[in-house]
């Protein structure tokens, strides 16, 4: 069937900010959808609040709305653009929920309104409503776990009587398993049921008989409108049922299913997608299998592209989202060619001749108070994928791809920490799913604990345990033989099992370069094979490679000038989609300029690892060994001509490798300059020489050194490790005891310690903390002629002390005097010249009184590059990349790539999105350690209106009426006067804690009600008010030290009860201003293309 001609314009809804459970996989799918639909000639309208996405680049849609994703806003966009259809299946749960809300309001999916394509409302409801889904599955004869539905706690107690414990609680209409849990006793059950009901937007939970310990599988299904169905990929979870699939280590294809069982599952998946009624596109169906009887039950299905479909696309080379977009506009699978072979159609099922492993990455170290135990609720913030010819190779590559200081499956320095456990302790730990559990399995096997005992403790399938055992046995053999005992065959065997040079170096107590040299001397080098969807049955057109140790290599020769772009690895807090955006832009810009681009990355969620983003893709870990191997392979493919390498766009990951890559290959700013900026001593000297003020401070490797510095500069100080991103381990320290704690955390026992600890090369930086300062970020580009382009000057809303990644910021600056901006720009130019920057430079300043201090400078892409590009219309990453390869800014102006910034009268605000709703045990007060997972952008004609939008996009709905609760730290109380007065003027009722209320009353602003301290345990507290839904906004600022009392409880309670809350006084002032402006005039929407046209 040909494509539909009865629709001309399509609205795609994106997934908004990166949050746990919904990451850049939806940028990947949405970008593919935008491209395909534009290619097919449709007018594409896009709504997404996340500026760091590729999909929101103005080239990818005809109209791009960076606006809050709320039903009202989407309605306004529909009103304005009048699309013929809405595609809600590309933007994760966010888009599906929005589509359902709009459908219920009669805005889409009913006659006379835009049609829902991809999945209709009935199908979404059937898949998403857990009760309906179960009913539907039972109706078609599928096995499902025994279960019941409840809407209240009382109903839940009735249901559990029927089903029995242990039971799993799953809220309806949620993403990433939020509010889900397993209850083993009745107390726990009551607690989880209450939480689950709160997490569900429709207050509905499914209570299900627990089948923890069963094997878990997923199938990725596609269906077209002629009812052709195919399975793209089967995925087997190593972690059995009980751990959310997003938190499980998973493997593709399924490893321990016979064909008879697999085909039974395949039939069930087709029956499921047909019954649910997904007419076109991709869905994900999850199954559990009883390991003893083979009984299969269906767990759930997602009627849309998902994290798993992104993984399946990368794992097989079959681009699910791209094909799903084509199916949505009416094509059938057989009408679409297979992109990779070009010669065969998409109506087939990929066969793969390698093993793919996905391993999640968590951020518990940034979230003190969390248990670190995995469960049915997703907690990971990113993932790495690896490809090897065998499971052992793939698995070990995956572990080193995580970049958490691990070189593979143990056999590294970090394994020593397990030696102190007794066998009993170790066996107990095997039973508790944690990020570390897999390494405990390795340690247990190393000690000779039997595979059967290991299985009994963790229920990981015995086949996998045997694979782990093979690695451990090989390790023993390698260690025993020593490097001298290694024949060529033995080298190959070790490498084929995924051992890294680093692990071998550890086992032999020599250095990694020595291992590499010895290995190269015997000629054991990786071969690169191709991901081709068909196990080599047909010739592949697309160079999508992975390394392995086999006989022959498939890298094609090419003499075009090549550039290797090193990506940013798995998403983590502090290093996420923004860096992928920069890498992708680099690739696009260089492709346009005639270079052959080579991407190296291991994050399956991203656009950078889409096989058609770059000319060549290497799906590889970003370690010294793997990157040097790629450079060698590309040098060979280039007939001996080495490629240039870009290290400055993927965040700290590639930057850390810059010293290990031949300096002459590095494009742009030299490794020496990068080091100059990172090396605290040299950097301080440079600033002194340039006469640019910086907060006084120094570096220390131990407590003694730290105390010495403090003696000179005085408390409070800012303590931070070097070579980290996102403020890892950063703290504001007010006294000696606190300093001792901070140094201990950094020195060895804490997570930084695990990542390598402190050393002369990696000391702790200690600076005087500037109180009450305004923080400013600058992104700039300098070319080799010395011209500097100031990309953007961003004024932070929160004052210094809140990590820049967690604070809101504005372009253009709103409160800085013009002369300060000029000083900042001048300093930036001077620093750029002094560091001999060729490419991007990010400088952070703190303005205190009339002094502009420089905090740090980084000659690399920053997190704000995409935001600046969207705000100003200048494609900073593209321009910088060209500059790194030798172009001048003047040339790029002539070429048309570099246009003057948009000087229209709009204000752009970036706001951070924090993961606290998933971690109720964590204090939501902001600090110097970054904890946000993503960001949103608000654009409007004034600061207040833009701020309002940014808050709304970030999920903090600022109320227009109701009750506001205020509780302020002493230093913030004067500002409280302004807040209280303005809120009163807007007609809000005010409630405050006694201290704040007294203060306000003294200045003639009595509040309506005063609540007692929670710690006093009497009377009505703020926590009670929130639980009963009486508060609409909470303004609570932390009281510096010792605030772990009422304030923390209030903030946690606000987060748990989903009451909007603001935790800094600056943000509160901005919010109240925004609320008052909003009251005058309701929100309007405008596309990025229109803003950018206002030059």
């Amino acid at each position, binding site marked *: 069937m040909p494509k539909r001609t009865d629709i001309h314009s399509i609205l795609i809804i994106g997934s908004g900010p990166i949050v746990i459970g919904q990451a850049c996989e939806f940028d990947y799918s949405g970008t593919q959808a935008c491209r395909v639909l534009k290619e097919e000639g449709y007018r594409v309208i896009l709504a997404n609040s996340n500026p760091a996405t590729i999909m929101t680049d103005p080239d990818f849609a005809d109209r791009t709305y960076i606006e809050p994703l709320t039903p009202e806003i989407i309605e306004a966009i529909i009103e304005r653009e009048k699309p013929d259809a809405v595609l809600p299946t590309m933007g994760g749960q966010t888009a599906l929920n929005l589509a359902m809300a709009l459908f219920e309001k009669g805005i889409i999916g009913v006659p006379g309104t835009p049609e829902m394509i991809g999945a209709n409302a009935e199908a979404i409801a059937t898949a998403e409503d857990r009760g309906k889904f179960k009913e539907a599955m039972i109706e078609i004869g599928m096995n499902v776990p025994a279960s019941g539905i409840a809407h209240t706690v009382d109903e839940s107690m009735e249901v559990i009587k029927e089903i029995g414990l242990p039971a799993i609680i799953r809220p309806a209409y949620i993403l990433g398993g939020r509010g889900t849990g397993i209850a083993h006793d009745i107390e726990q059950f009551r607690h989880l049921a209450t939480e689950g009901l709160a997490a569900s937007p429709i207050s509905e939970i499914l209570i299900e008989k627990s089948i923890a310990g069963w094997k878990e599988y997923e199938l990725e299904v596609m269906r077209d409108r002629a*009812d052709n169905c195919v399975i793209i990929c089967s995925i087997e979870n190593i972690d059995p049922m009980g751990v959310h699939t997003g938190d499980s280590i998973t493997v593709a294809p399924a490893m321990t299913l016979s064909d*008879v069982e697999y085909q039974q599952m395949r039939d069930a998946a087709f029956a499921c997608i047909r019954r649910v009624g997904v007419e076109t596109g991709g869905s994900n169906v999850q199954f559990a299998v009883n390991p003893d009887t083979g009984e299969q039950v269906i767990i759930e299905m997602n009627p849309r592209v998902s994290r798993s479909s992104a993984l399946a696309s990368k794992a097989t080379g079959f681009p699910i989202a791209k094909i799903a977009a084509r199916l949505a506009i009416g094509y059938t699978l057989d009408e679409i060619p297979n992109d990779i072979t070009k010669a065969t159609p998409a109506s087939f099922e990929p066969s793969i001749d390698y093993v793919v492993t996905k391993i999640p990455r968590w951020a518990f170290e940034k979230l003190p108070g969390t248990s670190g135990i995995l469960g049915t609720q997703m907690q990971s913030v990113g993932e790495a994928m690896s490809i090897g010819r065998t499971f052992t190779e793939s698995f070990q590559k995956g572990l080193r791809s995580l970049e958490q200081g691990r070189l593979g499956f143990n056999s590294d320095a970090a394994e020593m920490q397990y030696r102190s456990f007794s066998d009993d302790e170790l066996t107990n730990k095997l039973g508790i799913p944690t990020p570390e559990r897999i390494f405990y399995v390795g340690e247990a096997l190393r000690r000779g604990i039997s595979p059967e005992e290991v299985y009994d403790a963790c229920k990981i399938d015995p*086949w996998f345990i045997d694979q782990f055992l093979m690695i451990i046995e090989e390790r023993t053999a390698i260690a025993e033989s020593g490097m001298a005992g290694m024949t060529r065959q033995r080298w190959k065997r070790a490498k084929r099992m995924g051992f890294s040079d680093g692990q071998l170096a550890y086992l032999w107590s020599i250095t990694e370069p020595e291992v590499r040299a010895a290995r190269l001397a015997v000629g054991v080098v990786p071969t690169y094979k191709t991901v081709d969807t068909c196990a080599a*049955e047909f010739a592949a057109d697309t160079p999508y490679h992975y390394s392995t140790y086999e006989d022959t290599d498939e890298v094609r020769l090419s003499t075009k000038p090549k550039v290797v772009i090193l990506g940013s690895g798995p998403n983590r807090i502090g290093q996420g989609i923004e860096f992928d955006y920069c890498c992708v832009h680099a690739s696009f810009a260089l492709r346009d300029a005639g270079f052959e681009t080579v991407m190296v990355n291991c994050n399956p969620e991203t656009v950078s690892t889409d096989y058609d983003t770059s000319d060549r893709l290497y799906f590889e870990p970003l370690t010294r060994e793997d990157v040097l191997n790629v450079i060698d392979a590309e040098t060979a493919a280039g007939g001996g001509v080495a490629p240039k390498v870009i290290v400055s766009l993927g965040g700290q990951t590639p930057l850390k490798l810059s010293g290990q890559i031949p300096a002459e290959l590095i494009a742009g700013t030299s490794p020496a300059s990068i080091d100059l900026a990172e090396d605290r001593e040299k950097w301080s000297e440079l600033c002194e020489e340039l006469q640019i003020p910086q907060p006084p401070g120094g570096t220390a490797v131990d407590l003694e050194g730290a105390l010495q510095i403090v003696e000179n500069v005085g408390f409070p100080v800012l303590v931070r490790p070097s070579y980290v991103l996102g403020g890892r381990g950063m703290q504001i320290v007010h006294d000696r005891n606190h300093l001792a704690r901070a140094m201990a955390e950094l020195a060895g026992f804490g997570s930084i310690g695990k990542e390598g600890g402190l050393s002369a090369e990696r000391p702790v930086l200690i600076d005087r903390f500037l109180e009450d300062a305004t923080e400013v970020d600058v992104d700039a580009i300098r070319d080799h002629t010395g011209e500097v382009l100031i990309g953007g000057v961003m004024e932070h809303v929160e004052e210094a002390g809140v990590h820049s990644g967690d604070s809101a910021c504005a372009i253009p600056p709103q409160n800085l005097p013009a002369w300060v901006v000029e000083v900042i720009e001048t300093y930036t130019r001077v620093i750029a010249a002094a560091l001999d920057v060729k490419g991007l430079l990010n400088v952070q300043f703190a303005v205190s009184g009339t002094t502009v201090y420089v905090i740090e400078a980084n000659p690399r892409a920053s997190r704000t590059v995409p935001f600046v590009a969207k705000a100003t219309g200048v494609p900073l990453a593209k321009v910088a990349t060209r500059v790194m390869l030798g172009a001048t800014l003047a040339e790029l102006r002539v070429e048309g790539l570099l246009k003057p910034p948009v000087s229209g009268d709009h204000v752009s605000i970036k706001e951070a999105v924090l993961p606290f709703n998933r971690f109720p045990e964590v204090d939501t007060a902001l600090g110097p350690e970054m904890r946000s997972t993503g960001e949103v952008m608000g654009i409007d004609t004034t600061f207040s209106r833009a701020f309002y939008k940014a808050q709304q996009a970030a999920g903090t709905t600022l109320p227009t009426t109701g009750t506001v609760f205020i509780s302020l730290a002493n230093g913030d109380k004067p500002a409280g006067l302004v807040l209280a007065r303005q809120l009163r003027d807007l007609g809000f009722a005010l409630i405050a804690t006694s201290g704040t209320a007294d203060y306000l009353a003294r200045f003639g602003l009595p509040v309506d009600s005063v609540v007692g301290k929670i710690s006093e345990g009497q009377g009505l507290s703020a926590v009670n008010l929130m639980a009963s839904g009486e508060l609409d906004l909470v303004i609570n600022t932390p009281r510096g030290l010792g605030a772990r009392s009422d304030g923390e409880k209030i903030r946690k309670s606000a987060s748990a009860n989903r009451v909007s809350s603001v935790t800094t006084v600056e943000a509160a002032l901005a919010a109240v201003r925004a609320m008052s402006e909003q009251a005058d005039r309701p929100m309007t929407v405008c596309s990025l293309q229109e803003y950018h046209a206002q030059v």
Partner: protein
Amino acid sequence: MTVREAALVLADGSVFEGEVIGADSPGGVASGEVVFHTVLAGYQEVITDPSYAGQIINFTAPHIGNYGVNATDFESRRPFCRGVVVRELARRRSNWRATADLDAMLINYGVPGIAGIDTRRLTRLLRDTGAMPGAFGTADEATLRAAAAVEPGTDGLDLVAQVTTPLAYTVGGRSHRTIVAYDFGIKNAILRGLAGLGQVHVVPASTTAAEVLAMKPDGVFLSNGPGDPAEVGYASDAIGELLGQVPIFGICLGQQLLARAIGAETFKLPFGHHGGNHPVRHESTGKIEITSQNHNFCVSPESLVGKATVTHMNLNDDTVEGFRVKGEAAFSVQYHPEAGPGPHDAQYLFAMFGAMMQDPKAWVEGRPIQVWLANPQPNAHRLPAPERGVA
């Protein structure tokens, strides 16, 4: 497990290094025609499929043996292939259905194998040059090279005679119908499919048309099997005599023999179709079936003109996947609707055979498709669950 080094040498001189698995081969040499198979699971069914007589099977899936083997997944009484080539053989199996390791099965049935091979390199080579004779084992390279050079492959050989049942036997019997199934190398999954339609008398390949007709069948089934259809002239002669006397359904080699019986031609594909993921279009509905395939020979579409209507096409390479004989109650497919291993998308074909036997006249008049259209979900038509001890 001690590693015993071995090598695989192809007729073109390519050498692959690996290690011994499975049974020992006489003199450390096993030879045959090397083909590759792209199924991800289903190795036991593939290895025990008689169609691989004379062939060495190179599995593209790198891990083979993970879920062991069991009594139910045998496709025939024993393996007939000459050997298996894998990247990695599981040393420990894990599956509730398993009763033994694959390695034990290979040893038990005398099937030699080689592991540790760069199977992707081998596959790419076979893809580019076509299926090729080869030899592997622990013998020295010169011996293997010589063995590969004299290995005839499967061209010009009657391999059917090696695999067909020596004696007739009967399975099934749930309905009153009588089906005669020619065993050219028949798979158990097919027998299960046929058993759902009637009592099945399985007869040796050399059974004459007269002998078949004497059994008064409601339908005749032509099975899959190994090798070149041109070498099984006696079978196509018999089929020619049966045409018009009794409804006929053929699968794989059965399709090729039916084609030759009506005067059409067959030819050898460069590297054949061996996998579980081939898209086939059902011409009358446009629907796509994902199919299990295993054949080296194919029916020439030009030679069918005027004699038969092509009903199914392979979308990968536009080869004929199914046809219906003009004016006769006879149809066939090149692929494997019985699965074993592979998808169940085409199991409706057994129902179609049933309908044809029910009313051959309606069939000849061109109403076969309604049977299928009446059942819009092809996967919903499920075969009875595998049972032990069939065949």
